[in-house]
């Protein structure tokens, strides 16, 4: 069943286009993440699904219902905002209860439900407090509580974890996922953090400048990026993109020795290779020569930045394999053959 469908949805502010006709089908019960750099239209799209922004052209369906012209309150969605948007003058319990009370429920009747939700989010002791007395993480839980109390058709998340510190962010990510799986509700999540997108999504939608570049399972987007933008956006550290020429089965760049490539294409090409597929060795004459510039140790791994033939490359090396690799040292560089990506002059995958 398709839970949410966008058909040729366009959003313009005056003459300025923010979203240029996107088609999206979200599967029921799945966690879909809209990801992209700022200004790509992901938040606008989310807000259109919520009904907080009007749709310039196109249709939005939730279930079988055309909700394009409906007010947010008639769409049966709930939303968690980046800044939590808690009602500052209400207690935690009243905040959570608000969606039900606004529709006419009596506090006494729903007290049980409030307690249930509070227990699920482990915020029961906070029920009598006001938002300003809570930490960021606690406020976030309250916002989530307010979203789930109604059991809506769709959860919408607008970068809810951006305001939390790094560690808390990772913890909350897992919590969110667990909650969503438990409740089985369709979720749409917006973020600019590709790592968050990778870990949370069942379906990842990469957006840029108001259009969808690629959508699919995270693993597919990661391994088969459809163009150089998606390739460099997804994955950290960034994929190495090297401009060069393919001629007679070899890719050459910066006027040096070619790398063997099996492809029927020839001409100007961009070669993409992820840092973890860049293999460094000391001594010998494998591959081509490079000089190590900077080593950043991350615990179990290290990010090595090196220069080869005037081109900067990044490699990820296991900490155990760092012997001989020091800043300023000469190394031999080769790429893992099965993990090469080729992109044409227009940036698209070949």
């Amino acid at each position: 069943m398709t839970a949410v469908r966008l058909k040729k949805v366009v959003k313009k502010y005056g003459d300025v286009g923010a979203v240029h006709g996107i088609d999206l089908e979200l599967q029921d019960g799945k966690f879909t993440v809209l990801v992209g750099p700022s200004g790509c239209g992901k938040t606008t799209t989310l807000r259109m699904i919520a009904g907080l922004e009007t749709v310039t052209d196109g249709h939005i369906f939730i279930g079988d219902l055309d909700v394009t012209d409906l007010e947010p309150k008639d769409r049966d969605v709930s939303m968690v905002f980046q800044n939590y948007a808690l009602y500052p003058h209400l207690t935690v319990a009243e905040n959570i209860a608000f969606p039900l009370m606004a529709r006419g429920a009596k506090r006494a009747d729903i007290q049980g439900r409030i307690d249930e939700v509070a227990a699920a989010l482990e915020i029961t002791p906070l029920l009598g407090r006001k938002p300003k007395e809570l930490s960021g993480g606690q406020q976030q839980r309250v916002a989530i509580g307010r979203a789930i109390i109604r059991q809506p058709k769709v959860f919408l998340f607008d970068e809810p974890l951006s305001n939390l510190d790094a560690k808390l962010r990772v913890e909350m990510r897992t919590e969110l996922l667990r909650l969503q799986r438990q409740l089985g509700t369709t979720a749409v999540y917006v973020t600019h953090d590709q790592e968050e997108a990778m870990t949370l999504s069942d379906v990842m939608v990469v957006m840029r400048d108001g259009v969808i570049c690629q959508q699919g399972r995270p693993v597919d987007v990661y391994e088969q990026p459809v163009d150089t933008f998606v390739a460099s956006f997804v994955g950290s550290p960034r994929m190495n993109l090297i401009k060069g020429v393919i001629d007679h089965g070899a890719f050459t760049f910066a006027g040096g020795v070619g790398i063997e490539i099996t492809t029927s294409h020839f001409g100007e090409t961009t070669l993409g290779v992820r840092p973890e597929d860049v293999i460094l060795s000391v001594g010998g004459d494998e591959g081509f020569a490079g000089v190590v510039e900077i080593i950043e140790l991350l615990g179990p791994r290290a990010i090595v930045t090196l220069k080869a033939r005037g081109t900067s490359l990044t490699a990820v090396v296991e900490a155990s394999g760092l012997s001989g690799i020091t800043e300023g040292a000469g190394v031999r560089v080769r790429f893992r053959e099965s993990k090469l990506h080729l992109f044409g002059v227009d940036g698209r995958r070949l």
Partner: protein
Amino acid sequence: MTTLVVPRARRTKSFNPWGHAGSLLLVVAGLVVLLPFLWVLLGSFKTGSQLNDPTLIVFRPNLANWRDVISSGILQAAGRSALVGVITVSISIVVGSMGAYSISRYKTGGSATRFGILAAQVLPPAVLVFPFLDMAFRLRLNDTLAAVVIAHLSFVMPVVTWFLIGFFDAAPKEIEEQAMVDGLSRFAAFRKVVLPQVAPGMGASAIFGFVLSWNDLFYALILAPGNAATLPVRIAGFNTFRGVELGSMCAAILVSIVPVLIASFFIQRRLVRGISGGAVKF
């Protein structure tokens, strides 16, 4: 099941009764504000007999009232009001900005000063006017503008200072600290770096203070009722039941209103920003 999708050119919004009621309210409010002014405007051009018919709208305008009013010395009274206003505001701004800076940056006097300034703004004039009157008698300043200026200072200076404290609070400290590190003395930093920043706010406060002084009747009536009458006092003098004088009164009212209307146009935007931004923090 497929839903028929018909491309739409324009999106129709659901009928929002509140929006329309709001616009209607604003129109009504606008009319309520406008009509008295219009009535007075019309009245100023009417002759005595025309004035007996309050709903007369179309007629040949007559300038007799305006001539009477202008020759009655109302412009001199306006001039005196302006003089008092300018002097009061100038003193208030100079003294007030220095004091406000001290209070904002150094918390001089703590809560007590802020309280004092607030309290001074709202003191009932009835309290201070009698001492002023007695002092004026003793110093032989009764019925002079000097007495009025001092009385006006008692409420204009606190208001101006109050606003300025808010504006200084809103100006970032780092900039003058940078200036001092760069070699300016504290007073020079105040003059050359901080004042330019709050200049718009100072302008708005000055105009606001001027309007307060311009509009005062109570102090001026008691302290300078005769030869040194300011504009509101002169206008009060047009108070009469006789229809013949009504026209001149209308003209007099307009003379006092017009400068203030112009001033208010300029400052109202600043005031809103000032109030929501820094002047009176809620």
